[in-house]
């Protein structure tokens, strides 16, 4: 039993332990320079893993519980990239807030969560799925409260924790019910799916559990509060990685379990998608806190992906992957901009973004790119992403979803444009903002992907579509 298929997880774990070791043996806890080394180590390690991910043999599997196919690999790369961005953000954030001595723990927890997400997309067995699900949650509860001196830190974390715990319980119950119907947690081993209500109920409970991770309405109510209270770099990770992993895992479930079992999960998810788009977009309209606004916007964005998930086709899976690349760049980028604002001592609100174009042209223009991408405006990458998921939904005949999605995307522009207005049109004075170099580099990288990437969408779409082809080929028995 070669460990090759899990090599990325193992490497990331190894990196985590390296960071931990460095953190433990480092003598001077207050030294900023050394902390920089810690972050450099984490970043370099993540970059190396990302580069190494090119060489992983495909496809492979570890027992029957764990598979590495191109689909999983692509999502893992998304997760690793998200983690890398969060590392850059945390560097600036911990220094600015004077909590640099927590850097080691923060990075380790971040890497653990990354491992959880990576395992989640490879899981082909319910127990593995569940543990990976937990591993993606638990470190994040802690990370959201990283800045624990903040009044609201515990509040946001507790809210997430309660939702997460209840969802975990529900997910586990769903797994139990599925097992009650089939007698195994290895869904690939099920030869003939029974048409029991218990199996369908189990599927419903599993979807409910994943609803928390996706922050899909009505399981999304924790997200705005948590995002608002959590450090922005953590939110950059929190708003992308769990969602990407959860969507990927759900796609796998749809293809390999719900599909063969004849459970119409798609139609349930369509309902969730409609509600999620609607509520996310409406609630985002009147927000003034940027993190909160982006939280709702993220909920809305997930609604669009759920439309593709509801379609449940191979095309939809590929295009969703594409979507997540765009979403990663834009959403994580936007939260990093907020992180930069916070790190520079500016409040993360609309008012704080006033006249940003004068105060920090880099932040303002990057943020504009992110907003355009999130808003689905050509030629940003997000434009293609949004069009693609709608196309996937249309392809599956979900016309009502496409229609309300397209219309709500217009409502969304209201708040995206409102941010843009504060940054570019409002002329109130404010201090100039300086951005630490690593964070600036991360933001600019995101902006380049989200902006210039839109000029070459095929570069992103082709691998995504090919990855899906490979996955369904390997799994079609």
């Amino acid at each position: 039993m070669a460990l090759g298929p899990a090599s990325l997880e193992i490497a990331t774990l190894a990196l985590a332990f390296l960071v931990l070791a460095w953190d433990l043996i480092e003598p001077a806890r207050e030294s900023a320079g050394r902390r920089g080394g810690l972050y450099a180590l984490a970043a370099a390690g993540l970059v190396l893993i990302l580069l190494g991910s090119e060489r992983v043999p495909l496809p492979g599997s570890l027992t029957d519980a764990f598979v590495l196919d191109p689909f999983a690999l692509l999502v893992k790369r998304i997760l690793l990239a998200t983690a890398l961005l969060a590392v850059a953000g945390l560097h600036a954030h911990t220094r600015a807030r004077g909590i640099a001595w927590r850097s080691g723990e923060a990075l380790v927890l971040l890497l653990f969560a990354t491992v959880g997400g990576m395992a989640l997309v490879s899981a082909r067995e319910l127990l593995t799925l569940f543990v990976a699900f937990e591993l993606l949650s638990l470190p994040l509860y802690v990370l959201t409260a990283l800045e624990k001196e903040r009044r609201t830190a515990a509040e946001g974390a507790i809210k997430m924790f309660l939702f997460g715990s209840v969802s975990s319980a529900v997910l586990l119950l769903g797994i139990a019910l599925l097992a009650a119907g089939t007698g195994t947690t290895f869904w690939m081993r099920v030869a003939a799916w029974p048409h029991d209500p218990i199996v369908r109920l189990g599927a419903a409970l599993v979807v409910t559990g994943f609803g928390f991770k996706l922050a899909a309405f009505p399981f999304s109510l924790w997200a705005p509060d948590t995002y608002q209270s959590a450090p922005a770099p953590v939110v950059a990770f929190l708003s992308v990685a769990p969602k990407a992993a959860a969507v990927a895992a759900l796609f796998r479930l749809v293809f390999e379990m719900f599909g063969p079992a004849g459970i119409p999960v798609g139609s349930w998810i369509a309902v969730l998608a409609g509600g999620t788009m609607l509520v996310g977009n409406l609630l985002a309209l009147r927000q003034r806190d940027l993190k909160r606004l982006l939280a709702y916007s993220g909920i809305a964005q997930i609604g669009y992906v759920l439309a593709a998930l509801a379609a449940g086709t191979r095309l939809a899976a590929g295009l969703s992957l594409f979507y997540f690349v765009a979403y990663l760049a834009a959403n994580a980028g936007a939260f990093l901009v907020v992180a930069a604002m916070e790190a520079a001592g500016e409040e993360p609100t609309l008012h704080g973004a006033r006249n940003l174009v004068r105060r920090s042209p880099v932040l303002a223009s990057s943020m504009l790119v992110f907003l355009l991408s999130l808003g689905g405006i050509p030629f940003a990458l997000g434009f293609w992403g949004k069009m693609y998921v709608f196309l996937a939904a249309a392809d599956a005949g979900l016309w009502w979803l496409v229609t309300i999605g397209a219309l709500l995307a217009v409502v969304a522009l209201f708040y995206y444009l409102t941010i843009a207005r504060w940054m570019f049109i409002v002329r109130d004075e404010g201090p100039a903002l300086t951005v630490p170099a690593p964070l600036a580099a991360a933001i600019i990288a995101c902006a380049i992907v989200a902006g210039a990437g839109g000029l070459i969408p095929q570069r992103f779409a082709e691998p995504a579509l090919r990855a899906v082809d490979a996955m369904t080929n390997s799994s079609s028995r």
Partner: protein
Amino acid sequence: MRDAAFWSLSVLLLGAAAAVVTARSLIRAAFALAGSLLATAALYLLLTSPLLAAVQVLLYTGGVLTLVVFALVVAGANEPAARFRKPLPAGMLALAVFAALASAIGTLPAGPGVGGLESGRDVGLALFGDYLVPFELLSVLLLAAVFGALLLARRERAS
């Protein structure tokens, strides 16, 4: 005999659970929880799994109870005047969830169980065979939990 044990244990379990969610005193609630966990352990015995029963009693009940009592001491029980907030909608939702679960469970065939979960060795083999990956992940998870709890709970000098 087994049925009688099952029913009485079930009543005990649910009674203790009701006490957990209704007890005015948190300490009492904690001990009620311990009771319900122990009742569950007994049920596990009935379900032919002494291993689980042992783990339940030793690790779970003991660990959880210790943690909770410790937390109550540190945080202060600080009992509110009223235990409940809006118990009626909460109860109705809980009932609805129960109804949803029960309606599916009701369709299951009612037969005696197969049992045969006694072998600890088989469990160990499964753990290192089919379930190696989750087991490894679980170890990371536990590490993360320890780590996280420490990070959150330790008191630091403000810098």
